[in-house]
């Protein structure tokens, strides 16, 4: 979603040190921290490449989900019991302790579903963009993706090459 219809360049690197260097170089050339990202095959400690820290609202999702789950649970448990009030075993028509068991599950189910949706959403997935990608990244190489080039493609490519990129791929014809 982030880079739909935007020109972008992807530099392929062999070591994480080169990646950190490439980011420094790009920033020195006037690229904003938000105009680039690093592609890796495993999570690295936050800020390891000197990249901008990512803000997200994932922690809100489970709470919203829990509230929805609880609401649906309340509706179901109360609704089913009062819509046709049959006495069973001398228990009250609105029997709270059994309801709590079901409500608990409903709440957590809501929280779980919303969290996973949240993870996908916050990860900016599904990603339908045509931004450059290279299978080598999941093979242990590192990628530096620069977007919002706005005519600075050559500059970016030079910076990437100079930082030690073994290859640069991109959506625009490389010059």
């Amino acid at each position, binding site marked *: 979603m982030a880079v739909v219809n935007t020109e972008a360049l992807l530099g392929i690197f062999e070591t994480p040190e080169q990646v950190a260097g490439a980011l420094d170089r790009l920033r020195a050339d006037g690229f904003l921290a938000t105009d680039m990202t690093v592609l890796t095959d495993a999570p690295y400690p936050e800020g390891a490449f000197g990249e901008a820290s990512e803000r997200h609202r994932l922690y809100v999702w489970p709470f919203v989900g829990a509230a929805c789950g609880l609401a649906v649970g309340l509706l179901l448990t109360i609704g089913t019991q009062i819509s*046709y009030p*049959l*006495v*069973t*075993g*001398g*228990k009250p028509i609105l*029997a709270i302790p059994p309801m709590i068991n079901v409500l608990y599950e409903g709440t957590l189910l809501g929280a779980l579903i919303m969290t996973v949706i949240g993870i996908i959403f916050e990860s900016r997935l599904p990603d339908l963009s045509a931004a450059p990608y290279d299978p080598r990244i999941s093979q242990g190489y590192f990628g530096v993706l620069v977007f919002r080039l706005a005519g600075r493609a050559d500059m970016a490519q030079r910076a990437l090459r100079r930082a030690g990129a073994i290859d640069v791929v991109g959506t625009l014809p490389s010059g």
Partner: protein
Amino acid sequence: MVVDVDRCTGCQACVVACQAENNVALNEEQRFLEHRAKEWIRVERYWEGEFPNVKARFLPVLCQHCDNAPCEPVCPVYAIYHSADGLNVQVYNRCVGTRYCGNGCQWNVRFFNFWDPSWPEPLNWQLNPDVTVRSKGLIEKCTFCIQRINRAKRTAAQAGRTVSDGELQPACAQACPTNALVFGNRKDPNSRVSTLSASPRRYRLLEELGTEPSVVYLKRVEVDVEQE
């Protein structure tokens, strides 16, 4: 219902009457050996004392129609509920056969249909048209002959009155030669059932479970002084 144990002779007439009235499947010997026999009402026989001074004690056991029945709330599909008359009602159509109610019942009066029942010719001609034949895979049990209750209620309603005491009897009570089984309205303080259950001989089966059974038993009167 009141069961006067003192009057019970263990003749099993109630069992046969129930079997005929309610289309309960036939119990062959093999069924008893498999412990899968169905008797909506059964007569328990206990031996007391040492030979030659032996006594047989009889105890008719049927669904107790508990007010706080342990079988009712465990059903996930409302196949069992408590009717306004105080009956513990089994809805065959809804039953999916989890058999959870059978586990909850301490009196073992809920019977599971392990197979589709069949009656060899000509016994199939004596099936009661007022009572459903239950298919395999569900739980059935004593209904206090609900078909008779409903008929009596209809008749009374047509005549513009309420059902009077003794107007209807379930098959077992009707068949009992010694009147050991008495059926009636517990809510009516003047009914025979109410009078009898005020007796000092009164007790209920497994009363300590707190399920408030609707069936009241009357203790046997001990005449044999030697035993005491």
